[in-house]
Structure formats: C-alpha cells, structure tokens
C-alpha cells in the first residue's frame, strides 16, 4: 500500500463545499475509500445524509460518475450499472476497467435495503458495497435503526420513565450476515484506522465478485459529542471492543487489529450523550449486560478467527 503521504497527493474526488456536518464520519470515509481506488470508480448512494448533503441541485460534490435512485436500492441500482458495464464490455462497446462502489447508511443497508443487498451478494455482481454505519436514521433526525446499539437514546427510542434504558434490543450483526452469503471478501473497518481501512478497500476492489465493508461512522449530532472528537470516539469503539476490526476472506475470519488491552466499555459510553442515562445508578444492570455482550461477541469472533481469548 502506498504511504499516506503519497495517497494524500491524489486528487480529491469528493470536493469540499458539500453540506455534511463538521465531524461527520461519512465524508471522511468516502475520501479514504476513494483514495484507495486505483481505477476509475462509478458510485451509487442510498437516500440519506451523504446523498442530500453532496448533491443539492444544481450542485454536485462528486468528481466521479454518481447515481442516487432511492433509499433501499443503492445495491440493486448499482447492480444494473455493473450489469450494463459487463454487457457493453462483452460486446466490445467499452474497454476501460471500471470499479463499482455502492454506499448506504445503516438505515439503507441493515434495514430497508437489506433485501436488495442480499440479492446483489447472491447474484455475484462485481462491486463493493460500503455501509457507513452511524447507528441510526440520522438524516431524518436520529431515529433508531437495527444498527442502533442497545442502550442508545434516539428520538424513537427515547429514555422515559417506563423505559429508562433507551433502545431495548441489541443491534443486528450485519457484517456476519453478509459473511454468511459466502462473499469473497467481507470486512469491518473504522476511519480512525485509516491504514487498515484503505488496505481493506484495496483488497475488496481487487477481489472478483461482491465484496462488503461495514465502516463505523461517527455522527456528532446523533451520538451527542463534540464534532472535533469524532475520530477519537471512533477509535474508542475499537479500543473498547464495540467495533472490532476484522475481515473475512473466502470464509476465513481474521482480526486485523487487536488492542493490547481492551479498554473498559464505560469509556465508550461516557464519550457520547446518547448513552449518558446508562451511567445513572438505576441503569447499572444494563451497563453490566452491555459489557457482557461485548465480551461474548469478542469471544465468538476470536473463535471464528481461531485466536486465543485474552484473560
């Protein structure tokens, strides 16, 4: 992989001046992803923050061909683009090598777009799907999705007298669901670990077939934190074991980064306003339960990767 210094000299394919919030993970992720691509890229986006903030007509922030169709169909729309590419190439009507990347948020991927994504994976389109997972419907104003972690307060899982813990159900483990499709390359990444992220994108783009990367995307508005802390908080997700970095290559799980010592979950929860209520004494039980969940998840991941669990 070229050094960050070399990569940073590449022309930015998402220009500045778009309307994403300060500290938004989405644009940071997009820039890292496009930095990693060596061939020309055609991209699709689901309806969501990334789409509305980068393309208010008559402006566009995209220096690459880009299409938004609807909320639930970033995958299927791009599968049509990719099918057109294969058809026209086979007929000798184009000769360029082009890569295809679909973007969707967690709402457009875990929830409403899951079927379209599953179809694309099964059909074997040669494209990379990236979920920028900010763990709720942020574009519509922080409503819970199936990616929202248990205990998080959102506008549709608020903290109340009868329900003091916020969201009552654990999040869906989408990365493993995708891996269950036997896709040739599946990974989980984080913009705070840009080397790891870029390497994963390059691996995915050089793999034949449908590939998938789930990338945690901090959202200062929805997570309730200072915009300047986005990357630090993203890093905490890895250090506390909330968002492990791993890849699944041809069915083989591999942890790509493992902190020497896992930080206590409390550090992650304390860093964001959406978890503030969990620190109250009456929610102690929930805190303990969440800590156990992280441990269990880590254990099962390490088992899949054939690695030893640390003490």
């Amino acid at each position: 992989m070229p050094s960050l210094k070399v990569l940073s000299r590449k022309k930015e394919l998402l220009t500045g001046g778009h309307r994403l919030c300060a500290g938004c993970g989405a644009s940071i992720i997009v820039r890292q992803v496009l930095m990693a691509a060596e061939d020309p890229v055609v991209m699709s986006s689901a309806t969501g923050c990334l789409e509305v903030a980068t393309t208010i007509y008559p402006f566009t922030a995209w220096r690459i061909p880009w299409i938004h169709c609807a909320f639930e169909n970033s995958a299927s729309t791009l599968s049509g683009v990719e099918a057109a590419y294969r058809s026209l190439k086979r007929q000798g009507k184009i000769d360029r090598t082009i890569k295809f990347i679909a973007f969707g948020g967690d709402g457009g991927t875990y929830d409403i777009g899951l079927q379209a994504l599953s179809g694309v994976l099964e059909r074997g389109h040669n494209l990379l799907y990236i979920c920028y997972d900010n763990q709720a419907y942020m574009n519509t104003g922080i409503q819970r999705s199936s990616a929202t972690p248990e205990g998080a307060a959102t506008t549709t899982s608020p903290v109340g007298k009868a329900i003091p813990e916020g969201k009552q159900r654990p999040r869906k483990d989408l990365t493993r669901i995708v891996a269950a499709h036997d896709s040739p390359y599946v990974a989980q990444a984080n913009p705070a670990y840009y080397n790891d992220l870029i390497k994963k994108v390059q691996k995915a783009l050089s793999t034949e077939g449908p590939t998938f990367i789930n990338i945690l995307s901090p959202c200062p508005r929805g997570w309730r934190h200072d915009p300047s802390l986005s990357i630090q908080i993203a890093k905490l997700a890895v250090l506390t074991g909330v968002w492990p970095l791993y890849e699944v290559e041809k069915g083989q799980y591999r942890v790509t980064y493992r902190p020497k010592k896992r930080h206590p979950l409390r550090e992650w929860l304390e860093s964001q306003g959406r978890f503030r209520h969990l620190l109250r004494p009456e929610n102690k039980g929930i805190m303990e339960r969440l800590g156990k969940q992280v441990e269990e998840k880590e254990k099962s991941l390490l088992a899949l990767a054939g690695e030893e669990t640390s003490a």
Partner: protein
Amino acid sequence: MGRIVGLTGDEATAEAMRQINPDVVAAYPITPQTETVQRFSEFVADGIVATEMVRVESEHSAMSACVGAAAAGARAMTATSANGLALMWEICYIAASYRLPVIMAVVNRALSGPINIHCDHSDSMGARDAGWIQIYSENCQEAYDNLIQAVRIAEEEKVRLPVMVTFDGFIISHAMERVEILEDDEVSQFIGKYKNAYSLLDVDSPVTYGPLDLYDYYFEHKRQQIEAIEISPEVIQKIGREFKDLSGRYYDLMGNCHLEGAELVIVAAGSTAGTVKSVVDELREKGEKVGLLKIRTFRPFPAKQIAEVLRGVRAVAVLDRSVSFGAQGGPIFLEIRSALFDEIKPPAVVNYIYGLGGRDIGVDEIKRVYKNLERIAHTKKVDELVGYLGLRE
C-alpha cells in the same frame, strides 16, 4: 419479409425482446408474465442474445437495476404484472424523472386484494401518473409490434421517457394467435443503436444522477417532463408510420374501427376492443351505425384527436376494466368525458365497469351496451352514468 408463427402474448413479447436484443434485462417472475421471462432466459442460456440478464430478487430491484443500467448507457428492459408493478411503483416515477428510456411489458392483471391472477387494468391504470408512456395492445400481434416501436419512442432524443406496453393477462398472454414476425435484421435496423449522452460509464466526463432537487428547481424539472410527454404524440405517430413502411401494419394514437358515420360508439382498451370489433362488424352488416374507438396510447392521452373523431356521434359508452374508487367513473371514462367538454354538441357519455379480476365479457353484453346507447341517443336521457357489465347484483 417476416414469417408467420403461432405465439402466445408472452411468447410474442419474448420474441420481440430477443430481436431487440437489449444490453440488460432485469426481471422477476410473476403470473401471468412468467413465460416471457422464462423464454427470454432460454435465449440467454443458448447465447442467442447479447443481453446481461439480472435475475433480481424482487420487482423493486428489477426496476432499480433497469434505472442503473439505462443511466449507464445500456438499453434496458423488464416485464411484470400487477403486484410486481406495484412493488416497482416508487422506482417507476424515478425512471421517468431521470428521463431513462426503460422499456417494460406489463401483462395486465388485477391488483390485490383480494389476490387474483387474472386480467383487469387496475395495475397499469394505477401507474398512469408515474410519467411513463403507456401503450395498450389488443392482441399478440400488437403486443409484439408495440414493444418494438416502444424502443424508438422511448429513446427519441426529445422524448427520453420510459414506455410500458400492456396486454391482457391470460386472455392475450396465454392465448396462441397468428403473429407476423419481422426478420431479426429488420428489427435491429428499425430500432437502431441506443446512445445515452450522459452515461455513468463515461468516466472522463462524470455525471451526477438523482441529486436532491428542492423547491427552487423541482417544479421546472417536472415541467420539462410534461413537455417531453406532450411532444411524444407526434413522435409516436412518426414511428407508427415508419413501422407501417416496414411491416404494413399501421399504428396511430388510437385504433379506429367503423367510426365513419358512426352514431353509437364504444371506447375500449385491450383485448375487449377485439370483442367489440366483431360485434361492430355484425351490427354494421345489419345497417346499424355503430363504431369502436380503441385506446392505444393512454399516456399521452390523445384528447384532441378523440374529440375530433367523436364529433357527430350521438352516444358513447366507455368500457373500463378498472375502478378509480370514489371517482366519477373509471379512468378512461374520466378522460373521454373531459376530452368532450369543450365540444359544442358533445355526445352523451356513459361508463361501464367490466371484467374485474378476469370476469369474462361476451358479445351479448356488448350488444346490450349498444342497445343502451341507442336508447340514450333516442331519449337523450342518461339514467345511469356508471354501470357494471357481467356483475351479479
């Protein structure tokens, strides 16, 4: 010169698709469209088409993939029915607003519920405001001919709109008829090559499809869409004339039958037009001044032309194979009545809802409609504006 074969509507559609040889077909099976997709899959399996076939997991993804493919500069086609069309709904509007010339065969079937697999026009009539050009076919031959013309209409530079070609489920889709098939090279010459000036695959001049379009531009973009469909009638007629030069079969915005000197006229779309035609022939032999106006393009609706051909007619019965619940009548009736509003001496117009969920309609019922029209013309009185044919009450 073409050849004459026996084909069902579904097979004729697949045959037209084979000759069109689209770059991409994205489709999902649904009764009664299924055989179109099956047969086309055989063409793909045998390698006789260049098509990349995307066997999607839903109609929603079928239309989404067609949008992606057409935006990437491919000629894209699909086919569906009823609930499949309903599942595509959201993306149908998007295909039209992105001005993508997607071609779709819609095999008309009653839209649930209750679930029913047989013919009525509730599916495509429901989609009438999606921004697509809609062409209704009477029989297998028309389904085949219309699909080939649809490619040219959709891709015409000043139109650039998606086109749906409809024909009646089972009655046409599964009935074998005599169909004249053009030669493969005649079709490919007629449709020419598709060139999208704004292809996503043109990576050297990147385009953005589907930006957020707010109150400062959305309205103007909708106006452009209106303009495109308003221009389309002359394009449809021009291509109809060219198609006649090629095939000997002429298509206008509507199909007329014995309208010269007709005093009592039935308006119908789809296979029922054929049934009406046989009644017209029979009654004309007896000297009755009856006629048929067959709907071909429902969108754009040729209101002016219809008002002209109905001038001098005394009474009109519009047959609708779908309901617009709570409206003043069926969708075709509303259009026809409105088209005649500015006439100095408009004919009396009545509406008959018929054939819902595949309920059969026979010549006796159509004869009864002409009888009623005769009474209305004579008494100049309409007792019942909207009636029902073949309904137990």
